[in-house]
């Protein structure tokens, strides 16, 4: 390790502090933002707080794990949360949120006119910025209701992580900006000094836009604008209010990333942007970090040892007749499944040769293997409890050679793991070098996805433990 490890991010004090009212999880796509938000919500609730989690676009099973797979834009209490706190969760319906704003701020006739306007319908169904705007709008609403001590909010899967800071402002300033006012009433501007050239530009512009988009489109926009007239001031005001809320001391931003180059580059960018906008950053959550309890064995030594075990004493022994054929066949099935797209012959794994030898065999067994074996895997394997009862009488006892092969496999697997560790370390070091001031919580990788409360609790535990998994530092 070439640099001092970043200060660990203490999650529990953040969650327990009654002064923490909003936690915003942001980061690039695919880094586990939503899962992190949900895990923080569960943990905070089980530590006694009354929490609401606002998710934007959760994966179906994650939503199901919190019982919010129905989309009704209202927080629902999550069952089976332990302790004194409460967890509520909701999934954002941006169109519904937009409709609600219109309904709340316009009289029924006008609201009806707006809601049925084709331009409004396209706008509210999700154009650049609408989702971000509505997420912030919903956050503002939840905060204003003051029913929860803590709001955990996930951010939309934007083009870039910055969109959600910019888009509300952008949409707000459009909806109540100069351009739309011009569209509505160019005449109003005519009298002002210095506006003449604008007016020329204006007629040219409406003319051009009319030509470009077609008269009916502009008409739709103008009707929309006219109908929204009374609400315009509101949009900018609300966008500004939400923006200030994000800067307030009760808010904490968590930048979420995975230990990959692109995700951490985006995270660094976001850290800089938050600082520029005076947004309070609590720290970086680094998901899916790998560790190894055997890290003192280096990749190079593990590979060398594996190779020494794989040198066949007598080539004849490597034939398909060997007594460990049971093991072989199952392994080969994996290998074949893995090669469904033919990854080519450069595969350096020790079984590549064996799998070629069994190619025809594996094709036959491929079809039934997945069902039979999946059940075994779900049962979970605790290496400390792997007992002899699992070797049935029909399974031949592996001989010396199979132990060697198994050991070689364990070593190769370890070498692969150590290479992953080294790569993750490099990307993390790059981030730490750029931003040594940012506290980091590392979350050890899970083999599978999370889809229940127990899984979210596990993530929460790992978040709170914060430090690198064994061997990763």
């Amino acid at each position, binding site marked *: 390790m070439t640099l001092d490890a970043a200060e660990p991010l203490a999650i529990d004090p953040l969650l327990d502090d009654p002064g923490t009212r909003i936690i915003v999880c942001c980061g690039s796509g695919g880094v586990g933002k939503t899962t992190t938000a949900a895990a923080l919500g569960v943990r905070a609730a089980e530590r006694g707080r009354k929490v609401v989690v606002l998710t934007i676009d959760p994966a179906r099973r994650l939503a199901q794990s919190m019982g919010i797979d129905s989309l009704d834009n209202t927080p629902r209490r999550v069952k089976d949360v332990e302790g004194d706190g409460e967890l509520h969760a909701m999934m954002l319906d941006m169109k519904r949120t937009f409709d609600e704003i219109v309904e709340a701020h316009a009289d029924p006739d006008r609201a009806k006119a707006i809601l049925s306007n084709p331009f409004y319908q396209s706008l509210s169904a999700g*154009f650049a910025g609408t989702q971000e705007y509505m997420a912030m709008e919903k956050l503002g609403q939840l905060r204003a209701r003051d029913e929860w001590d803590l709001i955990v909010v996930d951010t939309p899967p934007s083009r870039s992580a910055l969109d959600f800071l910019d888009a509300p402002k952008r949409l707000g300033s459009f909806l109540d900006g100069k351009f739309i006012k011009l569209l509505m009433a160019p005449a109003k501007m005519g009298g002002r000094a210095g506006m003449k050239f604008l007016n020329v530009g204006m007629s040219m512009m409406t003319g051009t836009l009319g030509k470009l988009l077609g*008269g009916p489109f502009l008409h739709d926009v103008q009707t929309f604008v006219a109908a929204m007239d009374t609400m315009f001031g509101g949009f900018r005001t609300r966008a500004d209010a939400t923006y200030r809320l994000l800067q307030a001391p009760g808010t904490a931003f968590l930048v979420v990333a995975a230990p990959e180059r*692109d995700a951490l580059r985006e995270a660094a960018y976001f850290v800089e942007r938050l600082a520029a906008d005076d947004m309070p950053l609590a720290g970086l959550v680094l998901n899916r970090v790998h560790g190894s309890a055997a890290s003192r064995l280096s990749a190079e030594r593990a590979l060398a040892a594996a190779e020494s075990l794989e040198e066949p004493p007598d080539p004849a022994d490597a034939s398909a007749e060997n007594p460990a054929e049971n093991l072989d066949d199952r392994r080969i099935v994996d290998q074949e499944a893995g090669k469904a797209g033919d990854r080519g012959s450069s595969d350096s794994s020790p*079984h590549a040769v064996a799998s070629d030898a069994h190619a025809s065999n594996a094709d036959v067994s491929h079809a039934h293997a997945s069902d039979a074996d999946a059940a075994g895997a779900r049962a979970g394997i605790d*290496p400390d409890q792997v007992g002899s009862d699992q070797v049935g009488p029909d399974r031949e006892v592996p001989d010396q050679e199979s132990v060697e092969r198994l050991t070689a496999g364990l070593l190769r697997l370890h070498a692969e793991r150590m290479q992953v560790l080294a790569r993750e370390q490099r990307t993390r070091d790059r981030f730490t070098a750029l931003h040594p001031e940012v506290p980091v919580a590392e979350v050890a990788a899970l*083999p599978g996805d999370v889809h229940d409360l127990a899984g979210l609790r596990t993530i929460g535990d790992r978040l709170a433990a914060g430090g690198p998994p064994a061997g990763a530092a």
Partner: protein
Amino acid sequence: MSRLQVVSGKGGTGKTTVAAALALALAKEGRRTLLVEVEGRQGIAQLFETEAFPYEERKIAVAPGGGEVYALAIDAERALLDYLQMFYKLGGAGRALKKLGAIDFATTIAPGVRDVLLTGKACEAVRRKNKQGGYAYDYVVMDAPPTGRITRFLNVNDEVAGLAKIGPIHNQAQAVMRVLKSPETAVHLVTLLEEMPVQETVDGIAELRGAELPTGKVIVNMVRPHVLDEAAVRGVTGDRRKEVAKTLTRAGVTGSAKLVTPLLEQAAEHAERVELEREQRAALGQLGLPTYELPLIGEGMDLAGLYRLATELRKLGVGE
């Protein structure tokens, strides 16, 4: 192969990398490909370790075997100004429009206009001819928005066509849609063998099919070799742990007694992952689409890794 190759995928699956590798793989035997990005992230420039691109097509790589890869970061605002200039000779008035926020309005807020401009530029490159009358680019590869938005992005022309019922944007949208829905286009989805990306892929394919957009391949990225499986781990019974320890010692590993448990734990995790991957493969298999698998580049993705992926894609038959 279709001449417009659209590459989408869930965030984090490496769609930009796959798009770039595909552009390299397709630039075979003197062919020219254009790699376009539409989200303003300059991901291609970062991948090729060059400065951010201005709004112009420039050569960024020579493919193995001599073909050329050009790249373009399409910018909706610039595309609109170009477009206005081309059709209306606006000149300075374009700047006035910009000052008023009209260009921002058209490219950011006006429903779908932005997407028409982005896809329109890509389609223009697909149809462009050179002086000899051949195509300027043999293939155009688009690093497209992620799976969750791809159908809306490509199909938005329909939406615009509904909104802008007449006029050049309308006509443009119609023309673009004809290319996008034709066999000239193939939309590929990049995924990992993990539950969420696979679920998004399954949903994404259903949406593309619903919109009658031409689905291409499912590209499974970062496939790790299976070194050991569950059965092998199960083979290590209680008293064989000692034998494993002995074997480790014999192979020159010191302190092997303490290593057996962590090594077996890693093997158990690996076995669990192998099983999860098998389930995800089965789910992808149900889609009935051709699948490519690309290996995980263990050293992390860099230019060398990119060329390796391109070579893998050629082995799989890309550009034949």
